[in-house]
């Protein structure tokens, strides 16, 4: 069972932010980000206000800023693009630090960076303060179709199993002199991925049989319940 341990982004804690119901946190995140995206990018002080709100939430959650900062690297490719925008955008040009850049492009780059960064920080805060099972229960309360929540639950449950399996295959490839990144070794990589698909598919079949033998009727029991308490119809896994 994968339900006992948190995912890689979760930061264990007991702050009010951690304890807040997950469905409220998801709604708050979506509403907050929609507001941010809809805000005209010339309203500079408003963005400072958004950042202050976010930082206050992070401070209240007790998650160290360094912990979130390290995980903000997912944004890097996008930052590179945003930095490119002033050079490829059209419109009147301006001189900044000896470089000729497009003025509307500069403004657009600021908007992209500000909104994108706020989005990454807000999403990271949700992920760091909310257990995966709580997010699933929250999505279910928000009337996300049950089948989607179930698929997501299985994905989260077996994420570490399957990625660790891929990791072992890659270690095996490297120890035999294969570089999985190099196109020369793609045939070997593709056979590994093919094997990974067959193993994942067959694992799914075994999980399904295990679930049927425990009385699965197409509906999962409440995922927010701790997995190790004794209940009838508890789902099993491999």
């Amino acid at each position: 069972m994968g339900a006992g341990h948190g995912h890689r982004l979760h930061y264990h804690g007991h702050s009010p932010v951690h304890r807040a119901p997950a469905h409220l946190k998801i709604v708050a995140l979506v509403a907050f980000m929609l507001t941010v995206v809809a805000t005209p990018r010339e309203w500079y002080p408003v963005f400072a206000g958004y950042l202050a709100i976010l930082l206050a939430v992070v401070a209240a959650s007790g998650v160290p800023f360094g912990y979130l900062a390290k995980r903000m690297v997912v944004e890097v490719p996008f930052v590179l693009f945003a930095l490119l925008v002033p050079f490829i955008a059209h419109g009147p040009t301006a001189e900044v630090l000896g470089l000729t850049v497009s003025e509307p492009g500069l403004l657009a780059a600021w908007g992209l960076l500000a909104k994108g960064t706020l989005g990454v920080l807000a999403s990271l805060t949700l992920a760091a303060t909310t257990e995966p099972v709580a997010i699933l229960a929250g999505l279910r309360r928000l009337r996300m179709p049950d089948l989607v929540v179930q698929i997501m639950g299985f994905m989260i449950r077996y994420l570490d199993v399957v990625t660790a399996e891929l990791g072992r295959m890659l270690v095996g490839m490297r120890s035999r002199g294969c570089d999985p990144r190099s196109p020369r070794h793609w045939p070997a990589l593709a056979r590994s991925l093919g094997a990974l698909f067959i193993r994942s598919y067959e694992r799914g079949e075994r999980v399904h049989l295990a679930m049927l033998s425990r009385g699965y009727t197409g509906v999962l029991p409440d995922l927010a319940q701790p997995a190790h308490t004794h209940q009838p119809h508890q789902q099993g896994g491999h």
Partner: protein
Amino acid sequence: MHVPDGFLDAPTSLGTGVVAAVGVAVALRGARKELDDRTAPMAGLVATFVFAGQMMNFPVGAGTSGHLLGGALAAVLVGPWTAVLCISVVLLVQALFMADGGITALGTNVTLMALVGVAVGWLVFVGARAVLPKRLSSIAPAAAIGALVSVPAAAVVFTLLFAVGGTAPIAFGTVLAAMLTWHLAIGVGEAVITGLVVASVTAVRPDLVYGARPVLERRELEIRAGRPVGTPNPEAGA
């Protein structure tokens, strides 16, 4: 790779969100036909496989790298409806748990990668399968062609969305040219890996490949004349 928050304006993000929700709702109905009550565990494990496959980066050129999107691959392996669900759930998990792709851009990402990527990949695959000889060995090349077209197709749809609701003043032609060159390179990598993975799965477990079913149904059971029981095998021993 994923569209972050603030890249497209709020109305466009909401619009693609509606498109994505409708698309996923239709896929939920279709997937039940492909997988019956096994949908939840099977799609969950396949989503995990797609996620693991997306972790494999390959060099595209100029020091940058792309990664597998997996839309065409999933469609050929498990069927288009299940593939839409799998890719959507992967994007949902990445947005909620890994801050990869903005939460307000989720609809955009699902529309581009799960709906356009899978639909184009699957339709091109079906077209190529109809043209190529009706043999099991045609499945992998057909899948590769589907993958090759699906990536630039998603890029073109993104460019159209950017023209409608983009937040940076860049000429339509510039965006289209940049996106197409970039994604053609990624598409080639996607095509090679998709073709090789499908080839390796069809070689071992052709019964698992959804796209190979029409070809498999045409194969007749062959009963070859064997040697009588009890006689020594001339090929055995050494």
